[in-house]
């Protein structure tokens, strides 16, 4: 397979996942604004979420005030924001178009339809749109594409590359959201264990579409330890770091088997190493080590895996 084809499939996966992350942010942000004001107002929370997506500077520069309308515009529509739903869907569709022949017609259709629908929404007056419908639109379409991929794509190297994109992006998004909670949302120690704290954890869970699943898994109260455990180490949780990483390893193993001895496997080796390191920890150890420190390490390791995928497969040996 051409390295460029693999690269486009990889980024198609990443961008689809990223579009979904953006939609979740939007949903969660909306929820925050519906609740009684905190001391600093919801601005603070919103800012933190923007930081999670790595785009708070861009937002401040372009919009200044945090208002519902601005946020919606920025996170959903704005092409200047590389992480907006519109940007990500467009990039995913563009990648798909470039490697059109590597996709089944079902996947291409789903991808193309989502883009055409997006263009329709963009032409509607903003007043006719509510946040919930934007979120539903996004998760609906990304799920359809995802479903078409699972149902129809050949289980070949292209499929592995798409899923590597999905897996690495998902791990990254979860890690960043968790990091926001501990590093930004809660700068002051006196809040720990307060109602506000619990509420913020809830927000994180919602942002990851995981609040129901959490209750099924742990029942009862929300505690920092349990939420972190759920999102980091619980292999049943679809967006947990360990789950995403496990899937990443699985797809890298698939590539290594398929390509045989002549092709480097440094990405697989690295991913295995990180997975082993993760499996060796429990949540107590992570808190002892410091959640932020742990997450910083993890995000760095993800970046390194991504880098090695690039070196092993996407440079084409030159």
């Amino acid at each position, binding site marked *: 397979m051409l390295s460029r084809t693999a690269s486009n499939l990889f980024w198609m996966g990443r961008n689809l996942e990223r579009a979904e992350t953006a939609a979740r942010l939007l949903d969660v942000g909306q929820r925050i604004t519906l609740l009684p004001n905190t001391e600093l107002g919801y601005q603070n929370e919103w800012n933190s979420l923007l930081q999670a997506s790595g785009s708070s500077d861009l937002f401040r520069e372009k919009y200044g005030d945090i208002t519902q309308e601005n946020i919606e515009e920025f996170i959903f529509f704005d092409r200047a924001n590389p992480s907006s739903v519109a940007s990500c869907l467009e990039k995913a569709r563009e990648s798909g178009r470039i490697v*059109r022949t590597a996709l089944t017609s079902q996947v291409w259709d789903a991808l193309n339809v989502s883009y055409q629908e997006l263009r329709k929404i963009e032409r509607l007056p903003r007043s006719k749109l509510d946040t919930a419908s934007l979120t539903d639109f996004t998760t609906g379409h990304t799920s359809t594409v995802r479903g078409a991929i699972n149902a129809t794509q050949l289980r070949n190297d292209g499929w592995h590359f798409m899923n590597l994109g999905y897996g690495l992006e998902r791990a990254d998004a979860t890690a960043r959201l968790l990091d926001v909670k501990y590093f930004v949302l809660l700068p002051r120690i006196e809040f720990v264990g307060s109602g506000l704290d619990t509420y913020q954890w809830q927000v994180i869970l919602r942002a990851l579409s995981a609040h129901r699943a959490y209750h099924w898994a742990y029942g009862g109260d929300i505690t920092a330890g349990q939420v972190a455990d759920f999102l980091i180490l619980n292999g049943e949780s679809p967006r947990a770091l360990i789950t995403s990483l496990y899937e990443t390893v699985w797809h890298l193993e698939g590539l290594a088997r398929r390509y045989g001895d002549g*092709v480097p496997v440094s990405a697989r080796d690295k991913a295995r190493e990180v997975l082993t390191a993760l499996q060796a920890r429990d949540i107590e150890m992570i808190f002892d080590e410091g959640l932020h420190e742990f997450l910083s390490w993890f995000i760095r390791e993800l970046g390194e895996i991504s880098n090695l995928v690039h070196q092993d497969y996407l440079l*084409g*040996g*030159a």
Partner: protein
Amino acid sequence: MSYYNEMFEGDRVRDPYARLRDWVETMPDDFRQMKQAEAEALFRRIGITFAVYGEGGDPDRLIPFDMMPRVFEQAEWRRLERGIKQRARALNAFLRDVYGRGEIIRAGRIPARLVYQNEAYEKSVVGVVPPRGIYSHIIGIDLVRTAKDEFYVLEDNCRTPSGVSYMLENREIMMRMFPQLFRNNRIEPVDQYPDLLRRTLESVAPAKCSDRPTCVILTPGHYNSAYYEHSFLANLMGVELVEGQDLFVDGEFVYMRTTTGPKRVDVIYRRIDDPYLDPLCFRPDSMLGIPGLMDVYRSGGVSICSAPGAGVADDKAIYTFVPEMIRFYLGEEPILNNVQTWTLWKDDDYRYVMEHLPELVVKEVHGSGGYGMLVGPKSTTEEIETFRLKIQANPSNYIAQPTLALSTCPTFVEEGIAPRHVDLRPYCLCGDRIELVPGGLTRVALRDGSLVVNSSQGGGVKDTWVLSE
């Protein structure tokens, strides 16, 4: 002016269309509209769209498809086929000659200036003889018909003729929508084209290639208006569709970057123009090209189809000499007619053309796509005078031809069915053999009375049938 109607002779239906008459005449309007919508939806779904260079606008525009097929009888086609193959052989012989000893010029049959001072004449490949001596591997020859047995060649396209995907998709869609038509008429298939193309490309692999040749299609990228065609062909041929960045030169060969490391490439079917092939040899600013490609090509490490420099054979000034080439290289009389052409850098021709502008078609020497041309009989006095000024400013940039009475073919229009002017572009493949599939791309001028069939100027396309015996 009277025009040859390909279906009707007065009230009589000509033989090839005999079985279509009922189909056309009994088709209910609503059924036709439904089918037309269905065809459009199919085209849109498969993504066969085109964008017009420099026009901006919707990048996902469709070329209008007309459901009424254009039909040739076996005997008519055989003659065309012989004429096209003859022309293809002569054009390749010409290229081999002018990049070699230039016998035709020494013999005084073509002015040296027209060849050696031609911008498309590529000095860097003089003396390079590509495998089998073939320079142009896919030749698109644009033909028009003026009478039952009278065909004229409008131009030859020796570089990278486009449109073959329409030939294939038009047929695909017709077969899907009207299977009964294909049962009632015995129509020669065209879907072997991608296999023939692949075999043609493999047959011109360099001598240094020992295994089964690896062929690729080189595209300028997905922003190109013909990207769909590039990806369509790559898919049907089972070869990689590459961009310049996917290829690189290492040592004596060209390689593509793959997930399992570098893979040697033997034959490049390029859909980019000469100046963008290699920044080391041509434009240093080209981002599309592959540095060092031309050195590998010139030393026989890779084949490029069509060969760099092939464009000198399809220049509009060279065009007037194609009949001479056929006589010189093949010792045969041309089967297909050339259109009489006045070259405006000759004083006599210039004078004649300026006196007869309202009757003539005037084209730019290097123009294409129906741009920069004047159709005298279809233009207002004002348009003619404006064009006259352009010619005066730079006469050598123009050629003129008589306005041909292009044949018409029944076409579905708002009011039902009406004759519209058509042309034909068959695609001739040159490798170890010279072959063409029975058919081609029929372009139709959808505007009533228009003689311009280019898609950028309101033209559409039709499925083209050749009946078997």
